[in-house]
């Protein structure tokens, strides 16, 4: 298939169908319901497996994440698109990644799982979607004002290869399963498809997402900002495929109540995804896209992913993460703090905002 195929509308729709089919297949093969693929949940499980948090129900080295990064890295290396780049406000990206995770664990899913939940009939995800769109709109407001985390620069090859190499290290830990790695005996962390299947599915998602630049936040952003629906077709294709898939295998369950690994507090579903959408816009892509770019050699994206990993550890160590019972009190505080910090980041990185030595801020005319 030619390069232009993947870059066109058919390519992005095919990528969406592939992700949707694999998501349904992975649930049929053992993954938790509506969680065939969830970048936030899976990074959270990896944090647990490494003992960075001790929530016994969320500990597993998810092969899907390994596959996605390696699939993207292989495609990028093969097409000479791989490039070691970084230095675009790394610590800011770490903080944004951290709060993407705090927001996602309030809602209980990244933007990809939000689409999977919608495709499973979970109407709570509609409030998540509304919040997500709202967060994206706030982010776009700052983009239009001149928000920028500034340029990245070419870096030594090892800098870009480091993240895929770390991921290979995770694969070794998964396969060797030494005693110091935690694997959940019960709960969502214990529910998973076979390692080879999950790894293969991840590789396919990584390959297709790298070629097509599939991005959950990009679809809605480009439609609002440029009236360009290209990326949104991927989003729509995932939703339709998963809806049809769930109906076909009998796992479609329409409603608000008793949805798998979800709660029905609409306000906090909304605000959690507002935080995810807003912080993702400032990062330049959704969690899936950050993984793909980290595989392509971007150490900025790798740092955003590490921010997500640490955010997941904090979320479980400090009782921030929501559960099926509902949001946690600490989590509500964390989401509000996250919104304030993201606001500060968004404002202070507007290109014509100068922080003066006296500490006062002044908006200069262009």
């Amino acid at each position, binding site marked *: 298939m030619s390069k232009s195929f993947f*870059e066109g509308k058919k390519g992005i729709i095919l990528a969406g169908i592939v992700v949707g089919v694999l998501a349904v297949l992975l649930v049929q093969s053992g993954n938790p319901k509506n969680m065939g693929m969830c970048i936030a949940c899976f990074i959270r499980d990896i944090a647990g497996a490494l003992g960075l948090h001790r929530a016994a129900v969320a500990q597993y080295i998810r092969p899907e994440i390994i596959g996605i990064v390696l699939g993207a890295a292989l495609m990028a290396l093969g097409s000479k*698109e791989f*490039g070691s*780049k970084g230095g*675009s406000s790394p610590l800011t990206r770490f903080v944004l990644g951290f709060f993407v995770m705090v927001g996602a664990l309030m809602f209980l899913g990244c933007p990809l799982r939000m689409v999977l939940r919608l495709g499973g009939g979970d109407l709570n995800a509609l409030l998540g979607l509304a919040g997500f769109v709202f967060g994206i709109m706030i982010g776009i407001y700052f*983009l*239009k004002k001149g928000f*920028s*985390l500034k*340029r*990245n*620069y070419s870096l030594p090859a090892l800098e870009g290869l480091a993240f895929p190499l770390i991921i290979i290290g995770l694969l070794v830990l998964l396969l060797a399963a030494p005693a110091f790695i935690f694997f959940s005996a019960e709960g969502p962390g214990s529910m998973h498809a076979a390692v080879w299947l999950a790894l293969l599915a991840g590789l396919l998602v990584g390959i297709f997402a790298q070629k097509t*630049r599939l*991005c959950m936040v*990009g679809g809605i*952003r*480009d439609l609002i*900002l*440029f*009236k*360009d629906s*290209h990326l949104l077709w991927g989003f729509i294709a995932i939703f339709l495929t998963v809806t049809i898939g769930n109906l076909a295998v009998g796992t479609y369950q329409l409603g608000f109540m008793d949805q798998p690994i979800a709660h029905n507090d609409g306000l906090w579903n909304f605000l959690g995804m507002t935080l995810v959408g807003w912080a993702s816009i400032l*990062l*330049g*892509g959704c969690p899936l896209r950050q993984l793909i770019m980290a595989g392509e050699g971007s150490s*900025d994206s790798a740092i955003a992913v590490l921010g997500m990993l640490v955010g997941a550890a904090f979320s479980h160590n400090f009782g921030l993460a929501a559960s099926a019972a509902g949001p946690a009190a600490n989590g509500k505080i964390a989401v509000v703090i996250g919104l304030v910090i993201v606001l500060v980041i968004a404002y202070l990185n507007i290109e014509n905002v100068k922080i003066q030595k006296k500490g006062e801020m002044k908006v200069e005319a262009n």
Partner: protein
Amino acid sequence: MKQIDVRGLACPQPVIDTQQALNESPEGVDILVDSVTAKNNIERFVKLSGYQVDGEETADGALLLRVRR
């Protein structure tokens, strides 16, 4: 011809900068890019806006996109 440099900028800044440059210089703009993603996004955007585009590799491996009416 107006020239902008979007090398190293994250999505969607290359396209926003292109949009701004075309507002200021509607007859066309030359754009220096260094990623396939930014190149594709800019091409899609300018074509939707009724422009034509062709590209030429520069000495340092970047790409110079010429956007014209």
